């Protein structure tokens, strides 16, 4: 039998740089209240959200991604042409094919990297990060770019008082490359397809094309079921990720959960019994829920404001439609 030469990559992988893009338009709760019977106080108490960003027609999935990824590449200190893979996680790019990743890769001047989109909802960043880490260690890419990008305002039912205020738009990106020490822990991830109805798009594109329903499809969720799953089941997953990385809560510097809802974040912190010294990302207050973009956006902001610093140990966990989840411990770039 012919002998196949094995691939060879780096011993370990790390996040080398992070970048984010938030659309120019800031939307306060007052704008949301034009279409629903609610109040600023109610929205804040149920979600912790005071403002979110909505993209203009020019701030496309591609344009936001290029901005965020450009910053991540600059932050990492490498050149765009060194990137061997571009992974884009999104559920709000409304063209099935080709993948938006190839256009983004081209606009970034990356050369000819492997480029593809993934769909893993609000766990998309963790899924992409895990793939990128595997590529770097496997050697199929020396450097891999992971982008989480959403225009969830395009998938929001502005007349639904339980969800109209939740979602926002934006893009976050990281560059993953070789490391001498472990800087991305084992990923604890999975799916619970039996709960696929818990968070979903109301109707398929096919049904919409056929005129049923008349209303454009939007994101919908069973609030209480999502809350219970996110807080109590995901706290277990977060703990498993800490255990898998051999990190105790005391050794943790930063906690960056998916920015779904402040109430979920607060309850997770309580359930996980995180020590006082752990910095918790609360970007949802001014960014809303941006699905796959939320973790890198929150990471970028914590580093930019100085609330977290390079070299800090951070627990990241994404969870959402599928249901799917992914958690890991990383060293911040």
């Amino acid at each position: 039998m012919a002998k196949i030469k094995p691939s060879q990559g780096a011993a370990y992988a790390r996040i080398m740089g992070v970048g984010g893009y938030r659309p120019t338009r800031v939307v306060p709760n007052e704008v949301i209240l034009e279409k629903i019977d609610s109040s600023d106080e109610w929205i804040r108490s149920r979600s912790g959200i005071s403002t979110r960003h909505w993209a203009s027609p020019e701030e496309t999935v591609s344009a936001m991604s290029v901005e965020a990824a450009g910053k991540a590449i600059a932050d990492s200190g490498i050149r765009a042409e060194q990137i061997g893979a571009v992974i884009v996680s999104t559920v709000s790019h409304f063209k099935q094919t080709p993948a938006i990743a190839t256009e983004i890769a081209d606009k970034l001047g990356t050369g000819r990297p492997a480029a593809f989109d993934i769909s893993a909802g609000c766990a998309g960043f963790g899924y992409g990060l895990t793939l990128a880490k595997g590529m770097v260690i496997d050697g199929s890419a020396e450097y891999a770019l992971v982008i989480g990008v959403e225009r969830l305002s395009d998938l929001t039912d502005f007349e639904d008082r339980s969800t109209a205020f939740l979602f926002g738009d934006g893009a976050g990106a990281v560059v993953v490359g070789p490391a001498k020490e472990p800087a991305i822990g084992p990923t604890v991830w999975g799916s619970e397809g039996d709960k696929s109805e818990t968070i979903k798009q109301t109707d398929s594109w096919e049904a919409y094309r056929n005129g049923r329903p008349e209303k454009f499809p939007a994101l919908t969720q069973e609030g209480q079921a999502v809350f219970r799953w996110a807080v109590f089941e995901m706290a277990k997953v977060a703990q498993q990720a800490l255990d898998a990385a051999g990190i105790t809560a005391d050794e943790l510097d930063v906690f960056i959960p998916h920015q779904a809802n402040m109430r979920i974040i607060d309850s997770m912190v309580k359930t996980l019994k995180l020590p006082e010294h752990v910095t918790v990302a609360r970007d949802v207050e001014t960014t809303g829920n941006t699905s796959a973009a939320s973790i890198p956006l929150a990471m970028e902001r914590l580093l930019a404001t100085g609330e977290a610093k390079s070299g800090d140990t951070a627990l990241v966990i994404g969870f959402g439609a599928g249901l799917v989840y992914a958690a890991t411990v990383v060293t911040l770039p």
Partner: protein
Amino acid sequence: MAATEKEIVDGLAEIVNEIAGIPVEDVQLDKSFTDDLDVDSLSMVEVVVAAEERFDVKIPDDDVKDLKTVGDATKYILEHQA
């Protein structure tokens, strides 16, 4: 050993106090969680999960919406506790 009605109401009062800051003496059988005790839908989930642990009972999401009053929750726990 299965909890009595009084033990369940007392336990729920402690839980509601812990989660929503409502005085324990306000938590009575006829009180509505949302209308009287200011427990919103998300806090209700936390109350339910805490009650599950305390009384060794499973309360599925579909049943939570039927638990309008402290009395409803107490009856449910009495009937379903292991």
